[in-house]
């Protein structure tokens, strides 16, 4: 049918673009990770899977487990990302809940204010904290005034990195959670209260389970970029002590002549994230099945 050809024809330019600049590059990462290295330390990609060299991939995978070269980066990543997600939930959920329950002018204003950081460049927001956390900055001034003392916030301090990650990524967590909470049918909550459930029980048995999918979506939305984040660490810490996996990849690919290993590290990163994504899909599927039942 001619019509079907029309729709496919409209999609083709975009699909070709994505094939050229998403699929082919993805395979280039695999080919370099399983590739060789020439005498000038330049990577030589191997496109044919039959000729693959597993050395770099082996090195990368054995590097990220306990005892490996990159174990500290893996440990930092898991620790920082885990803490950041917990903090985003602890701060972001009440905010999203409050705004979702409001109506009228106040809601419009608050929505605008919580959407605003979303569109202030991430690096600008880091720049703001660098100024405040500087040795002579206002954070130290306030702490000194309170008699707590002076801290080097910007020199390999893991707490600064976690705080900066939370500050940077929390808008991306709040938005889907807000959207999820806003969609909840108020009649369900009223019904639970009418049937005698306490406020806490209503929250735990009705509101929280209904917003669970959006909490998961928000978590995915912030975990994915954090696994590739090297700039927060570079800006807020600048010390190898707080390196994350993103820093390892960036150093190998942009910093030196170890592009093969860098590409292999990207594969490691994608494997870890794939495990997480599979859990997410399994969990959302389970939720959908339960909702139908």
């Amino acid at each position, binding site marked *: 049918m001619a019509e*079907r050809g*029309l729709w496919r024809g409209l*999609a*083709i*330019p*975009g*699909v070709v*673009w*994505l*094939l*050229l*600049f*998403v699929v*082919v590059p993805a395979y*280039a*990462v695999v080919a370099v990770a399983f590739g060789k290295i020439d005498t000038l330390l330049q*990577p030589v990609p191997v496109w044919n899977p039959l000729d693959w060299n597993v050395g770099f991939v082996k090195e990368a995978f054995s590097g990220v487990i306990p005892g490996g070269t990159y174990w500290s980066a893996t440990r930092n990543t898991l620790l920082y990302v885990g803490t950041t997600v917990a903090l985003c939930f602890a701060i972001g959920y*009440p*905010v999203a809940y*409050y705004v979702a*329950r409001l109506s009228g002018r106040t809601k*419009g204003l*608050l*929505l*605008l*204010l*919580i959407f*605003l*950081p979303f*569109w*202030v*460049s*991430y*690096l*600008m927001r880091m*720049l*703001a904290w*660098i*100024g*405040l956390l500087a040795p*002579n900055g*206002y954070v130290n001034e306030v702490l000194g005034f309170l008699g707590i003392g002076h801290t080097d916030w910007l020199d390999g301090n893991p707490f600064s990195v976690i705080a900066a990650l939370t*500050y940077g990524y929390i808008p991306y967590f709040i*938005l889907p959670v*807000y*959207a999820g909470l*806003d969609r909840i049918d108020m009649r369900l909550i009223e019904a639970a209260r009418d049937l005698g459930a306490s406020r806490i029980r209503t929250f735990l048995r009705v509101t929280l389970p209904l917003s669970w999918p959006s909490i998961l979506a928000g978590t995915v939305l912030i975990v*994915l970029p954090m696994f*590739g*984040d090297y*700039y927060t660490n570079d*800006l807020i810490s600048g010390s190898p002590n707080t390196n994350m996996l*993103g820093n390892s990849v960036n150093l190998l*690919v942009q910093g030196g002549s170890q*592009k093969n290993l860098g*590409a292999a590290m*990207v594969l490691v990163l*994608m494997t870890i*994230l794939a495990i997480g*994504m599979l859990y997410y899909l399994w969990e959302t599927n389970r939720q959908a099945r339960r909702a139908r039942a």
Partner: protein
Amino acid sequence: MSATATEPGSATVARPPAVRPSRWPAWLTNPWGRPRFLALTTWVYIAWALLPVLAAILFSFNDGRSRSVWQGFSTRWWWGDPDLSVFHNPTYTDALTHSLELAALAMLIATPLGFLLAIGLSRWRGRGSGSANFLMLVPLTTPELAMAVSLLLVFTQLSVLPFTAIHLGTTAQVIGQVTFSISYVVVIVRSRLAQIGPEYEEAARDLGASTRQSLQHVLLPMLLPAVLASALIVFALSIDDFVVTQYMSSSGETTTVPMLLYANARGGATTPALNAVATIMVVVTLIGVGGAYLVLRWFGRHSGEQQKQSGAMADLTGIE
């Protein structure tokens, strides 16, 4: 009998028997009271989210060289200083120009590509459509670093056309930005398509229009606000992008504002002009997003649709 306040009988009568005495004050336990704790958390969050940025903007007007200690108000870092101010220092003006140039190019390429892809994907049923839908989602679910590394390797290692013709620098930067922007355009246009529904097109077809005519004279005008909005969003995404733009850059001439921030934010010698250039970037982004929001809202109102308050804003962020 003395009428003391401690008389047991009157106290029991006065108090309704069902209410248990509570350890907490009434305003805390009253379920119909104002949610003070939530309101406080929200306002504290908003202050925490926005005040540091405002402080950084304020520091661009600092009278001294410091970006962390206030030394009085001046506009020397904006235009006062003949060499170092943001509008006179070529490092900053070049980065600003290059950022805007990239944003314009990315917008002009990604918007039509994404628009056609959105319409195509929403109607195309058959072999390949499922994979195309999946492919469209890949850039949204990959860390940007992985995308940047993959593009860098393909442009530097693959000796096959068209990749040999693409060199790091402006071309590669535009390609990288377009690649992740397409998905956003598709999401925005498709959410608008879903709002419109099939009725208008069906009516056009019933009245004798061909598929092409109904597309051109009915659907296209109705989709125009979404197309404009997504163009502005691509503009904003491009201006703010750091990772892909940095990986695709080649030399000092292809430095953008976010790259300047990354390279100089920690430097002790950097002047508040850096805050000024960051402020310009934030303002440009917000103008773009604000414009997109107004376009969506204005058209949403005038097409007589009952849009939820957050509808337009949610559209902009790709949340259904």
